[in-house]
């Protein structure tokens, strides 16, 4: 399949968005949904074709290096000859992998939504067509982001992803919670994107280029290590406040990525985003959009390798976020929120893994096996997308069956929803890192990379991995076991319709086998094959830790008992703090309302009202007076017109004569 078909992969969702958005209302719900699924199915098939061609056609490997292929890259805005913004499509290992991830999850979410969105507490869902149009818009934005050929394009699609996420979180716009959540998500990510834009400007100013890849004699900024060194070298050691400008730029860009990828302290929007419909959470807030930040850092990886300062920041932020979110996930009672914190923690794994790939010294010696972290991160991104989407879709099925997000309304569902239960269990085993499920292979590589950086980093991440196993199985046992729930005997929950169950089964199957994808041959930072082998010490210990976590969860949550209550009262302070997410939201509330609004915004508003508005009103008054004053010029009499005409011409001539000849 020719790579130029990538254009179709991006274009079909856009056309679907336009078509479903404009004609959906007239088409009826069923047709809209089916068209959406078919369109996405076609996109998925083409995307697979493109990715398989790229990965397995040897002609794309030159001297053992899998080269990026620029399919299409027209100039979009050419300000000057060198300063050109392009919009294009490029396929390289991570883009091809992301194409697969996005289209797979998006397709299953489209299919699943046929069932999930058909009714809302028994009533037909309003805005069903809008939902499918927005899903298509999101898919388009995300695909455009991953195939971007330059930073500016990534930024444009970053924003579009944000907008479509905003639309989908606020899908139930009658509910105040959904509105708040959508605003929060949009504002927080926008704030982060401001830094991203600053970073782009600094980077663009010094490197004189936005492009990633070399093409037609143009040098991309991160086509290879050499290109990256050349790009960074253009800053000629310019510094700002003691750090090189490049480090600033890359840190700012990372902040942009951190906003989308919900890194501490910009994570606060993600748990609230769970107010959106669950299929949306599965697609956007588990599998695709939230990894945009990881993707961004991976895209600029060669630059980050050179600017180790920025890399260290990412490493610390990632490691802390992983632990912090895992701790919160251990006590949440709302299953979607628990899964959301689990997502934050897992994305932090990917970030950390990217950032531990440190090169040695100032001169950047790339040692043998360098880039393991990069590969592991992308591997984990891939497997995590699959099993986290699976978990969310399971959660959606459960919520659909019991009409509640709280685990106290669930309990003992295993008997009633066996397929969902087994699928959820597979998801839990995968995320906990039990072989041979997908998560084991990717997480193991991450841990190996962390141990390479230092024993401390490795131990820390291993501990978080243990917590992951614990909290996931806590959720699993609380939903499907614990005790028999009285309500269920009257109102029997059951496995959902086939459109919702089929995605669960397929994703569960993928979660079992995804770990065997030879990622180290396919997706590496420099396009070369990376030779890895299983590190038995790390693998063994991580499995052992995971088993301990699962066993702990089993003891505490399998059958109804008093241990959790005792634990809660013993560590009540800690428990409360974790339950309230360590009061981060309250802190933000305090800072925004008390500090920023009162101390900064109020004076500005006053100045705005008194001076800016006053000045503008004065201008408007003057303009309006002038407009009234000159009305006599237009008398309607033709003699007057001609008189003014000739006088005007003569006046201009005379004034010019006076000026020029005197």
């Amino acid at each position, binding site marked *: 399949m020719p790579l130029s078909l990538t254009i179709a992969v991006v274009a079909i969702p856009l056309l679907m968005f336009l078509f479903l958005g404009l004609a959906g209302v007239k088409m009826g719900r069923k047709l809209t949904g089916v068209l959406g699924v078919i369109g996405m199915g076609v996109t998925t098939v083409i995307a697979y074709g493109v990715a398989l061609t790229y990965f397995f056609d040897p002609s794309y490997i030159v001297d053992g290096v899998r080269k990026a292929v620029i399919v299409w890259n*027209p100039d979009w805005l*050419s300000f000057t000859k060198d300063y050109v913004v392009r919009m294009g499509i490029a396929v390289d290992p991570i883009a091809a992998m992301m194409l697969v991830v996005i289209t797979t999850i998006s397709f299953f979410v489209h299919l699943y939504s046929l069932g999930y969105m058909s009714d809302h507490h028994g009533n037909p869902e309003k805005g069903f067509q809008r939902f499918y149009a927005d899903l298509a818009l999101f898919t388009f934005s995300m695909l455009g982001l991953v195939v971007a050929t330059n930073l500016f394009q990534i930024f444009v699609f970053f924003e579009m992803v944000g907008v479509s996420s905003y639309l989908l979180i606020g899908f139930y716009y009658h509910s105040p919670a959904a509105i708040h959540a959508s605003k929060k998500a949009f504002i927080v990510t926008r704030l982060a994107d401001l830094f991203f834009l600053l970073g782009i400007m600094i980077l663009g100013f010094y490197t004189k280029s936005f492009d990633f890849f070399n093409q037609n004699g143009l040098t991309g900024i991160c086509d290879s290590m050499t290109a990256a060194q050349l790009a960074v070298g253009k800053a000629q050691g310019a510094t700002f406040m003691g750090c090189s400008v490049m480090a600033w730029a890359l840190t700012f860009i990372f902040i942009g990525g951190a906003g989308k990828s919900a890194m501490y302290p910009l994570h606060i929007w993600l748990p609230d985003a769970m107010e959106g419909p669950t299929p949306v959470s599965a697609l956007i807030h588990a599998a695709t959009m939230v990894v945009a930040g990881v993707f961004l850092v991976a895209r600029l990886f060669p630059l980050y390798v050179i600017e180790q300062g920025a890399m260290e920041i990412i490493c610390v932020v990632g490691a802390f976020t992983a632990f912090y979110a895992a701790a919160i996930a251990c006590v949440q009672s709302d299953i979607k929120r628990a899964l959301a914190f689990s997502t934050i923690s897992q994305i932090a794994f990917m970030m950390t893994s990217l950032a531990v790939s440190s090169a040695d010294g100032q001169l950047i010696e790339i040692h043998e096996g360098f880039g393991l972290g990069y590969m592991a991160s992308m591997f984990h991104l891939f497997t995590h997308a699959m099993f986290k989407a699976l978990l969310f879709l399971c959660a959606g099925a459960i919520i659909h069956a019991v009409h509640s997000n709280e685990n106290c309304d669930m309990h003992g569902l295993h008997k009633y929803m066996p397929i969902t239960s087994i699928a959820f269990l597979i998801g839990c085993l995968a995320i906990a890192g039990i072989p041979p499920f997908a998560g084991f292979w990717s997480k193991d590589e991450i841990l190996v990379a962390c141990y390479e950086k230092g024993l401390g980093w490795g131990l820390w991440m291993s501990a978080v991995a243990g917590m992951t196993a614990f909290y996931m199985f806590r959720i699993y046992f609380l939903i499907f076991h614990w005790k028999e729930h009285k309500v269920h005997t009257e109102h029997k929950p059951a496995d959902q319709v086939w459109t919702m169950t089929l995605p669960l089964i397929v994703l569960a199957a993928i979660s079992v086998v995804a770990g065997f994808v030879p990622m180290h041959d396919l997706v590496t930072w420099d396009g070369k094959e990376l030779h890895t082998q299983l590190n038995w010490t790390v693998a063994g210990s991580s499995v052992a830790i995971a088993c301990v976590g699962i066993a702990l969860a089993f003891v505490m949550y399998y059958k109804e008992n008093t241990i959790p209550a005792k634990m809660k009262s013993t560590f009540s302070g800690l428990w409360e703090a974790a339950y309230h997410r360590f009061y981060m939201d309250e802190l933000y509330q305090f800072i925004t309302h008390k500090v920023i609004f009162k101390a900064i915004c109020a004076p500005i508003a006053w100045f705005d009202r008194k001076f800016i508005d006053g000045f503008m009103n004065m201008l408007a008054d003057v303009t309006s007076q002038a*407009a009234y004053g000159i009305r006599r*010029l237009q008398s309607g009499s033709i003699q007057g017109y001609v008189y003014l*005409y000739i006088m005007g*011409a003569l006046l*201009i*001539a005379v004034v010019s004569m006076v000026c*020029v000849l005197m």
Partner: protein
Amino acid sequence: MDYSQFLLMPQELGLLLVFLLVFIYDTFMPQRSQRALPVFTTVLFAIYTAISFVPCQLGEAFGGMMELNQATWAMKNILNVGMFLVLLQAAKWTNSDFVSVRRGEFYELLLLTLFGMFLMISARHFLLFVIGLETASLPIAALAAFEKNRYESHEAAAKYVFTAIFSSAIFLLGISFVYGIAGTLYFNDIATNLMGEKSALLILAVAFVIAGVGFKLSLVPFHQWTADVYQGAPTAVTAYLSVISKGAAAFSFLVILAQVFGAAYSAVWEWMLYAIIILTISIGNLFAMRQRNLKRFLAYSSISQAGYIMLGVIAVNTLGMASMMYYVLVYIFSNLAAFGVIAAIERQAGKTTTDDYNGLFKTNPWLAFTMMLAMFSLGGIPPFAGFFSKFFIFVGACNTGSVAIYVLVLIALINTIISLYYYLLVVKAMFIRQDECAIPTIKSACPERISMILCVLGIILIGLVSCIYVYLTEATESVSSMFSMI
């Protein structure tokens, strides 16, 4: 005589062919098939427009009296596209009572004026230019008077014909001065002979030439016919006057200024034009603010838009020329979208004031939507085409780098903000204000609908499809020798 040089005017010949076919159809076809004349003309013109895009041979013809180059070729194509939209919008109107008996004349006159404009654009000799100018001007008086039964239509025609004759006289006087100084009417020869010339007569001549062309562009203070004629003339004619006529005049104005008076740029006419541009933009804006009649309002808005177009002219470089052409293209789509809506509503409900548009969104959402996009584009709100055209025209002007131009652009920017006020007033009337007896739902005719859809697509897409602008810059790059005098 070398007849092959006629190949250098393919667009003019094509237009003449269209004219002849329409004429034959009008004269010889039986009465019952006359109703199909608008469709016949429109389809024929569409075919001709499409064929005109085929690249052709470029060069000078008739001993250097006219020239076909990349830029003139592109400009004529832009005008063709605009003309096509006007024809679409006029189709329904020409079949209405009172007008239908003379509909053949309408199309023939309209096509002939376009022919005149093509001559203006291609002319490299003042004689040919004047012929083009007159061919383009005089039939418009007849067109303005087309609705014989309406008093305003007469008034418009009378005012137009008076002012047009007067301005032609002034223009010819200016040219005779130029002939007196330079002894020739060929653009290139005049330029050579005027080298270093700096006399009172030359200044007077330049002022008169500016006044003559400024009349067509409705620059202040040569603008006063505009409002009355725009209001009184049939809407299709107003639409034609406001975009096509203006575009052609602006282009030929730039050619004259750069090629003929290029050497006298900084000495003579740079400051004249600064004053005229500032006056045009500001006065147009100030008058537009107070208008309640939409056609009159668009007349003043078009005066101030002409000021922006002149920013591309005053830059006198290839970038300015490209952005001027781009501006005209975008302006064609935006203004014709507005006129399309006005024409549809005027024809069916007979209402043309802003207050009549209250609550339009409720009854006619698509018309209101089209009008909104047109206003946004005219006001220069991103991401619509109008924003990009304003942006590029400012960039083109600033590119010359003189401080005076920065001041000029600043004033233009302030005026853009003022203009937003009145453009948004229309949007406010349609979307926010309510009215018990809003204009009832209107079923627009098929050609009108096509033209509005094309306009909306143009407004949304032209700005985003950057290859158009890139193409125009390349086209003007190829005629950069025109600016060698500056």
